[in-house]
């Protein structure tokens, strides 16, 4: 009987668990989602279809899933971690073989009732597996080269599969999310310094390989890098998106142009205005006040998660909470950097706001783990 199980008697049971949920996080998530509903209503030209209504339905389903996950004791999820990871990995392989090609990338499996993006599932699966791994691994061995190599394989396998789709955004999220969990778990500094150095070398190699037979990235990915570095050199080509996004964002000013008054989105100057670039519409219509409010809401979600993790003496619970929070953080920070011209356009949605089922569902399941960890923490 583990330490955790021995303390299970302190854990509230049945519906009483609801009172012990991390309510601030839930309320913040609902607020963020409401921002999303408003924006989806707006970019549809003031109509609940085609985006807002389905999004609300999915959010409902996601919240239900989150509560169900939250009700199940955290140690059950620890035991399931390897299975979730294995299923996600199998699905990724499946996508590779049977997936449908959409938008130039092979990303989902059509299950009939919904399109499942295994890469989304993998984001949570990887965090769970790594947390469970470090929960199992004796603390002394954490920095042993062999025990460091193993989690690298866990991260590397799905990353490779995702890159072949190709989905650079998700790959980056997996690498950074996984690395953060390893870092939190206490792997020695030296490894990270080495990796950062190696990363710099890789970036150099990637840039140098362009135009050679062993070119490491696809042409469009290089173009996105070019565009990121200087959007103005191709304002009507691939730089068009980012230029228009910045115009939308900047023209918002202090208080924005008013709900449904954003000319950039309403007149279709914005690309993918309901998915990856939805933040620009929000910033255009609600201005600095709206945009920074959303940023604050996100930051508060991270804050409450970190507080919950620090107050949790259970290693798995703590690491899972931090891992989910980090994944969430990566989502919004990469997306916002991207639309504000601070990062290349890599196709990462704005969590809980962008239109899309898989990402939101998986994130809410992730927050279910956070809630479960919170409810079932040792007292």
């Amino acid at each position, binding site marked *: *009987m*583990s*330490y955790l199980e021995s303390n299970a008697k302190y854990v509230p049971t049945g519906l009483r668990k609801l009172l012990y949920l991390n309510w601030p996080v839930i309320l913040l998530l609902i607020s963020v989602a409401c921002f999303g509903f408003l924006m989806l209503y707006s970019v549809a030209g003031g109509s609940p279809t085609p985006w807002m209504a389905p999004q609300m339905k999915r959010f409902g389903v996601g919240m239900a899933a989150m509560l169900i996950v939250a009700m199940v004791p955290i140690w059950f999820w620890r035991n399931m971690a390897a299975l979730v990871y294995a299923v996600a990995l199998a699905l990724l392989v499946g996508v590779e073989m049977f997936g449908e090609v959409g938008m130039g990338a092979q990303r989902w499996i059509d299950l009939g009732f919904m399109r499942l993006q295994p890469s989304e599932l993998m984001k949570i699966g990887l965090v769970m597996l790594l947390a469970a791994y470090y929960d*199992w691994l*004796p*603390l002394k061995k954490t920095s042993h080269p062999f025990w460091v190599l193993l989690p690298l394989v866990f991260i590397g396998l799905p990353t490779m599969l995702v890159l072949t789709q190709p989905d650079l955004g998700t790959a980056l999220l997996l690498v950074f999310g996984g690395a*953060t969990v390893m*870092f*939190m*778990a*206490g792997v020695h500094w030296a490894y990270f310094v080495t990796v950062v150095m190696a990363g710099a070398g890789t970036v150099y190699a990637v840039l140098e390989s362009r135009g050679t037979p062993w070119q490491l990235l696809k042409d469009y990915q290089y173009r996105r890098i070019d565009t990121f570095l200087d959007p103005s050199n191709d304002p009507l080509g691939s730089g068009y998106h980012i230029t*228009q996004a*910045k*115009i*939308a*964002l*900047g*023209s*918002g*000013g*202090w208080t924005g142009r008013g709900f449904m008054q954003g*000319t*950039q989105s*309403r*007149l*279709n*100057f914005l690309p993918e205005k309901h998915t990856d670039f939805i933040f620009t519409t929000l*910033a*255009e219509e609600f*201005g*600095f006040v709206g*945009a*920074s409010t959303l*940023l604050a809401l*996100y*930051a508060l979600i*991270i804050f409450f998660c*970190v507080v919950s*993790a*620090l107050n*949790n*003496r*259970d*290693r798995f619970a*703590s*690491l899972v909470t*931090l891992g989910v929070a*980090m994944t969430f*953080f990566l989502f919004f*920070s990469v997306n*916002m*950097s991207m639309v*504000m011209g*601070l990062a290349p356009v890599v196709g990462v949605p704005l969590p809980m706001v962008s239109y899309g089922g898989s990402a939101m569902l998986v994130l809410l399941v992730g927050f279910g783990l956070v809630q479960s960890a919170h409810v079932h923490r040792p007292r």
Partner: protein
Amino acid sequence: MKRPPKETAESARRIGRRALFVGTAQIALVGVLGWRMRSMQIEQADAYRMLAEENRINMRLIPPARGLVFDRNGVPLAVNEQNYRIVIVREDAGDVDDTLERLARLIQLPPDAVQRAKEEMARRSAFVPVTVAERVAWADVAKVTVNAPALPGITAEVGLSRHYPRGSDTAHVVGYVGPVSDYDLSLMENPDPLMQIPRFQIGKTGVEAKFEEELRGSAGTKRIEVNATGRVMRELDREEGQSGANIQLSVDAELQSYTEARLEGESASVIVIDLDTGDLRTVASAPTFDPNLFVRGISVADWTGLNENKYRPLSAKTVQGAYPPGSTFKMVVALAALESGLVGPEDTEYCPGYTEVGGSRFHCWRRGGHGNVNMHRSMQESCDVYYYEVSQKIGIDRIAEMARKLGIGVDHDVPMSAVSQGVAPDTQWKRDRYGESWRIGDTVNASIGQGYVLATPLQLAIMTARIATGRAVQPRLIKSIDGVETPSGAGEPMGLNENYLRRVRAAMYDVSNAQRGTGFGARIVAEGMQMAGKSGTSQVRRITAEERARGVTSNADLPWERRDHALWVNFAPYDNPRFAVSVVVEHGGGGSSVAAPIARDVTLQALYGGPPPLEAYPSNIRDQIAEDQKRIMNHLARGATPRDRA
């Protein structure tokens, strides 16, 4: 798996330290994001706002309605007509080929129209309406509208386009409009932005061209919101432009139409000038053309037909045609002689039928000669020798000066295209032009309006008007612009001796009304309406001595191009002159037999303001005249020249 609690506590501490580190990094990143938002949304907001406005707002020009052109009585000569177009929008049309095929089955389409529309559609964005057919009949518009469900993307639109209700009758005066060409643009120093509108039409000839600025008006503007693909979303605001000014011509459309009908079959021109105001009541050139052809875009076949026609229908002969004035020039010489003081009104010259000058023999038209003739008789019977002699006495420079005074060889301000100046030659002119000195033979030739002398029908009418009034009558084609009357062309007295003028007029009266006058056959008998005129027959070929010996070939036996020009000028009524008229029939033959009857008919029409009573004509020709009148009236009612029926 079991772990000692101590290790768990140690693990939690380590996680705490690392989490704080990561948390700090996260806070820093959130700070960067917030700072970036601030700098974009607050510091650079204005710049981005401007870019957003530039993105979405386009300025569009609203073409103004072109000013209308009326005749002196308010009869419309150039109007804007509602023009129904059939347009197709590619993105709404579905299968374009299929839709156009169905349209072609429904209404008559020019064969190349479909092809042209397809090409234009391929060039432009999917939402841009492309014109398939223009000037569609109302019946066809109705057909398209009724069948709208079967013709997706096809709609009927209405716009304004120029129309000339009088058709060919006023073509040379009013001119026509056409789409701006690159050549037009190259001539403009500062092109109106309106010129950028596709198919915008500007005046190409005549009043339409000369008063382009006034008629065009100024463009309105509207600000429209467009989306990323350029589609118009809505109109934000608009500022209406100013319609072009309306122009009233001095021309009398009824008289003009009558004249054109009267000239049917001739290559001729007629000017009727109002002596009180200088108003050009009629500026008729025949044959003529349908200006509406040009507005629609003239076909190659029509263009070639007009351009290669030997009667030059596109030319406004009234102002562009410069002809040797022949005997109509004799008034100029007579007045110059009298004014010089070297020749008295009753001084006579002997006409043996010819005169010898510088070794050449110059003939009078009457081979047997006129005997002793004074000024009066020389004009009445058109004796040439009198003028040969008189001109040698006074010299060419006096003649040229008088010609210019009377309006020949000088510019007149008429807003028509390619106006000719004519020639009133003198010694200086010949030196400048040919680098040769003036010969006495040139003077003799000029004295009967041959040689270097050239005058346009307009100048001949002005000359007659000035003789009739003694004032420097100026032609006035534009009566008013935008309701503002233009200055009268009545003119100031020329300072010529009224006595001499009266003598010349009296001689002209006898040309028409004396038994022996050359214009007696074309006289007017109605009391108080009689005209005073002068015939002219100007050669376009040299008659050799050999031919003269053999007998001069009659005009009828010559090819058209080599026949004499028939000219006539007159004013009427003699007692109280109201109009001056000039008629030039190119290669028409004799002035008194061909040009004078035309002038008589037009003069009577002008004097009576409509068909004159038969009593105005000599009794022996009334039957013939009645028949002619009936023919012309039928012609007018039929609208044989393309024009709208009333």
